């Protein structure tokens, strides 16, 4: 350890000393310091040696010993990394989500790594050169749908980023997964805007916004936001991507919808896992989710009664206005049946089955009449 130099003897009395030279003049001198080392050996668990597996060193691999302990409540309001020795007396940062049941999903760490491995860049990965001019009515419809999807991505961004900073770091896997989810949404925002402006069209009419409002007004907690944003809207958006991919006009659109669908599937996977966890580990959440779903269906149906999205989709599905009312709307009906079946399946899996007959119109009209909901 370095030691302080011995104290020099006092100089004899002399006239007033000259000012000391600037410290830069002594820069080359050997300097000594007195460390405290009071941080050394302060660890809750030492000797951890996590090895990379065949998919590299993943976030979930680190959950060994105390580092993998995720308590049901996280009292620490600092940015103390989970497993580190806390420093006492720090002013709290002020997280509102400190219960594991309020955000947890066992799959979050895996989804985080998957999102990173499946990253894509719209600027260079989408084969933009495959886009060819389309008939005006079809291009209009594509642009209108892109405008709606931009609105959806915007709500994804604003909702997730509005909650991220409220989540405590005891559950960093979820925060990290949500960083990928908001980045996915940024990419969706970007690529639908690019598609709308790449082929002689432009943006269309903004969406009606009832569901957007419902999602952004989820003040009851992140779980409520998950029900609206990722379960109800998420399942709907996934279905849209699926059908738009089937009716893509070129490789560029096909690429966009396929990749956006894969991204969205991760978000919905998180939602299902989280809701299942929350309902199993917190009192009353099952009943709350059941209530939220009923309220959410009301909001969703108000947006669905607006004709703009349905008509634009019908034009795309039919290849033009001429057959949109017949063939196009028939495919739209198929899409809605697909959505309702998926949604009811999710509800059943979560343990909050819905009676199809009691869904509000027009949702009930797309439900399988043989589905009992049980």
């Amino acid at each position, binding site marked *: *350890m370095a030691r302080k130099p011995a104290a020099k003897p006092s100089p004899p009395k002399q006239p007033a000393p000259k000012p000391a030279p*600037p*410290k*830069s003049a002594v820069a080359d001198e*050997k*300097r000594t*310091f*007195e*460390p405290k080392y*009071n*941080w*050394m*050996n302060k*660890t809750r*668990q*030492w000797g*951890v*040696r996590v090895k*990379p597996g065949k998919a590299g*060193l993943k*976030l979930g691999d*680190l959950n060994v010993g105390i*580092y993998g302990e995720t308590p049901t409540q996280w009292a620490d309001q600092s*940015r103390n*990394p989970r497993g*580190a020795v806390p*420093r006492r*007396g720090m002013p709290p*940062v*002020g997280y509102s989500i400190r219960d594991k049941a309020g955000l947890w999903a066992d799959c979050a760490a895996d989804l*985080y790594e998957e999102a990173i491995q499946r*990253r894509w860049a719209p*600027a260079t990965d989408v084969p*933009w050169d495959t886009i060819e001019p389309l008939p005006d009515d079809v291009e209009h419809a594509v*642009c*209108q749908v892109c405008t709606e999807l931009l*609105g959806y991505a915007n*709500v994804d*961004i604003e909702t997730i980023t*509005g909650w991220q*900073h409220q989540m405590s770091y005891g559950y960093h896997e979820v925060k*990290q997964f949500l*960083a990928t989810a*908001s*980045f996915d*949404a940024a*990419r969706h925002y970007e690529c639908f805007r*690019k598609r709308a*402006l790449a082929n002689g069209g*432009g*943006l*269309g*009419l*903004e*969406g*009606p916004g009832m569901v*957007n*409002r419902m999602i952004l007004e989820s003040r009851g907690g992140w779980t409520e936001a998950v029900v609206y944003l990722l379960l109800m809207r998420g399942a709907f958006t996934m279905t849209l991507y699926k059908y738009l991919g089937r009716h893509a006009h070129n490789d560029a659109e096909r690429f966009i919808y396929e990749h956006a669908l894969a991204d969205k599937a991760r978000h919905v996977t998180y939602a299902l896992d989280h809701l299942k966890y929350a309902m199993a580990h917190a009192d009353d959440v099952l009943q709350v989710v059941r209530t939220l779903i009923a309220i959410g269906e009301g909001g969703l149906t108000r947006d669905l009664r607006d004709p703009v999205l349905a008509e634009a989709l*019908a034009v795309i599905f039919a290849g033009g206005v001429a057959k949109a009312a017949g063939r196009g*709307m028939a495919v739209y009906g198929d899409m809605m049946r697909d959505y309702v079946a998926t949604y009811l399946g999710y509800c059943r899996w979560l343990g909050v089955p819905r009676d199809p007959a009691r869904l509000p119109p027009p949702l009930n009209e797309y439900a399988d009449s043989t589905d009992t909901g049980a």
Partner: protein
Amino acid sequence: MSEAANGAERELDLGWMDRTGPLETRAEPGKYGLTIADISIGDYGEAPEASDNLTGRPRGAAARPASYRIGAYPVRSKNDIWLDNASFLYEEALQRQWSSATDVPWHTIEPLPDDVEQAECQLATFLTEVEFVAGDVPARWVSLTTPDFYEPRQVLLAQVMDESRHMDVFRKRALANGGGLMQATGATSGFVGSIDLSRDFTEMSSRLHVSGEGSVLTLFRMGELMAQNEAEKVIYRLCAQDEARHVAFGVMHLRYMSETAPERREEIHCYLDEAEGGLIGAANPVGQLTPTSESMAIILGGGKDHFDDGMNKIIAIRRRQLQEYRKRVISAGFGERFENGRSRVAQMIEEAA
């Protein structure tokens, strides 16, 4: 049952076809693909000076009078958040994403002497902690910003992703070589003047991007000096790339603010005064003697026995941090503070020597 549901034809309204933004837009990909800059054409490229968009409408889309007002965005003035190169920074961020699981050669990590491993783990604990702030705070500001300024929002979203990766890579490093996490420093708690508590975006950006991340960037650029193995070199190099974009955001935003809102210059100087006060404090891993700077000295010196050598290197890094900070502030258009005696940075550089 509705006509759509039962398969019957229904009359279409199609009124939406006449309610659009400007049409006949045909953005062409350039040599870097189809970038955000490429679609900033015509009216679609015009961000308003003040946004009245309260419905979350995509910029350039036709408004629907009946839409709900869902976004009472506090950041609605362009000069509050704008910068001229946001498109470039965002596209670069997308191109330079990396994976801490597979892009870091973890197998190159070899056992280290206990004092050095403890120091590495203390530094990793600190970096995990500070990267938490850099992820949380930009995310919050994204949710407060109108989508009319979507370009800077996109860069901030990329930053949140970057910081998330930094958090995980330093946690991985701490747990990969026979060590563990050590003691948190608390340097990022909610003190007055902290990044968290900023009430204004530019205030936050000057603290986070210009001074905070600027200091960390200097450090990461010293990765060759600090690294004990190839894995750590790669970590520092990749983190430095990311951090450079974040710092560039702050500098370019300050420059835009300086040019377009000169009435706020004095206020910005106050933020810089505060930022400079913390430049060599506990939030800086090469600040004055703190647990983190002690651990840095062990790493840079090569062990406790060479602590003084390490500290001398720390002082050199600190000097460089201050010099780079000064350059950034000059580049942002606030260089007069180094001429008129307001800034103490010159004195700090002198003292660091």
